């Protein structure tokens, strides 16, 4: 209950912050729509030269792009900002203020900043997803939709875990805020079917750098191309990365000595 009350305060703060910068919020929504337009334009460019990419047709690639955006948006909305600010939080000594609080430091770092503008963008993106489903004749069933929703949540958890691992490295490496740009750039590759990659790179995207789970795997589940064994493997990899991230965090906190405050 304590954590729910604290999270409620964070949500109220987030909403209050957003109301102060309404013009900026609207501008960012417009930029987001333009960005989706550019991604869709690229898909159209690719499909003027082919009817399929490694067995994936245009509708499936569109679906992959939109699901990828939705996974990223959910993560951005809930905890990306807090995690991304960890290097500066450590270097500026602000982490000390979190450590002395009688709640989980990781909870505070991860959830302090809820981005309302990301929530508004998510609503637009869900609308785009709805339009896409109406536009194309996808043969979905209830079970696959439910499993895909579960895979999307796993993808968000995976994004959280990987970004936490990367940012926890800032306990040792100073000023590596751009590590988040590196992960974002790597994640970008997950918008495309990994079947186009050579075998070694494909395995890497399913294991060590699991960007395939951000969109490719959820879409394969939705379109019935992913096996039950694959679903279990996805769960296993997500749990592995999550537990590794938490362990690494605790390892770092035990060895932390304040930089300044």
């Amino acid at each position, binding site marked *: 209950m304590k954590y729910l009350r604290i999270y409620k305060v964070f949500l109220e703060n987030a909403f209050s912050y957003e109301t102060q*910068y309404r013009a900026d919020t609207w501008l960012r929504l417009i930029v987001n729509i333009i960005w989706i337009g550019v991604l869709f334009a690229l898909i159209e460019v690719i499909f003027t030269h082919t009817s399929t*990419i490694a067995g994936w047709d245009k509708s499936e690639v569109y679906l992959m792009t939109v699901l990828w955006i939705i996974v990223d948006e959910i993560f951005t909305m809930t905890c990306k900002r807090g995690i991304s600010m960890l290097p500066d939080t450590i270097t500026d000594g602000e982490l000390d203020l979190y450590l002395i609080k009688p709640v989980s430091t990781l909870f505070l770092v991860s959830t302090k900043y809820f981005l309302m503008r990301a929530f508004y963008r998510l609503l637009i993106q869900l609308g785009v997803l709805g339009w896409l489903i109406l536009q194309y004749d996808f043969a979905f069933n209830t079970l696959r939709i439910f499993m895909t929703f579960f895979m999307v949540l796993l993808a968000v958890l995976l994004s959280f875990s990987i970004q936490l691992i990367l940012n926890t490295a800032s306990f040792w490496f100073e000023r590596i805020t*751009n590590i988040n740009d590196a992960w974002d750039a790597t994640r970008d590759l997950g918008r495309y079917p990994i079947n186009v990659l050579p075998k070694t790179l494909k395995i890497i995207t399913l294991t060590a750098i699991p960007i395939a789970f951000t969109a490719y795997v959820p879409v394969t589940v939705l379109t019935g191309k992913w096996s039950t064994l694959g679903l279990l493997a996805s769960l296993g990899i997500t749990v592995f990365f999550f537990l590794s991230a938490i362990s690494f965090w605790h390892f770092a906190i035990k060895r932390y000595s304040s930089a300044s405050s």
Partner: protein
Amino acid sequence: MGKYFYHLKLHIERHLTYRARVFIWVFVDTVPVFIFPFLWLSLYGDATTLGGFTRSDIVTYYLVSTLVWTASSSHISRLIRDDIMRGLLSEFQIKPINYLFLRPLRELSYKILLLIIVVPVGILFYFLFPEYLLLPTAAITWFLFFISLFLGYLFSTLVQMIIGFGAFWLGETNTGEQLDYIVSQLFAGRLAPLSFLPGLLGQAAMILPYRFVVYVPTQIYLGKVSFAELQHEYIQMVIWILVLLFLVLLLWKRGLKNYEGVGI
């Protein structure tokens, strides 16, 4: 000139102090190489060309365009925005150094280190996969390529300065930076060669000046630009640069009148 060279040296030393940052930025700029060549190669099937590009051409295009992007793209708008919003500009105003050269110098220091890292990797790649990295044989091509690279860098720097100076009036310019980045990804030719863009998109790409940052230098490298087209492109580049330079000076002069030196 001595004080500018000293600042350049200071920035290089700073980058070397935080080496991890430099390597991460190199990785960020080169990531598209890990997917786009494979994506386009998968579309060839039995065909030898696609949109006028052979398999070697398309791989070389992405390798060279990535190198060109890292060399010619500028990211100083956020630095300028922070200087204005945090009141740090005041500190630079009292120093005997022109601020309009200062931030580009920091970017240049990063480019120097970048090239030290990327060029050896490029040479290694050439020896490992010579069929996939074409090298121009004519010295004139290399000369024209480096000229276009420099002009592309100038263009990118001036655009970034205009966006950064928007902070004099708007405060937060993050949205402008994002918009510039998003539009340049498509219309600079980073995501796909501009000749692949169909209809209105292709026409827009040829009108907008973003092609000077990546597409034009890459096409010069690949030898896909005739002498007449090259003259036309260079003239347009120079005109755009002069127009942007005028805007930069105008915004700088007007912005300073608006500047209050208050930190956030």
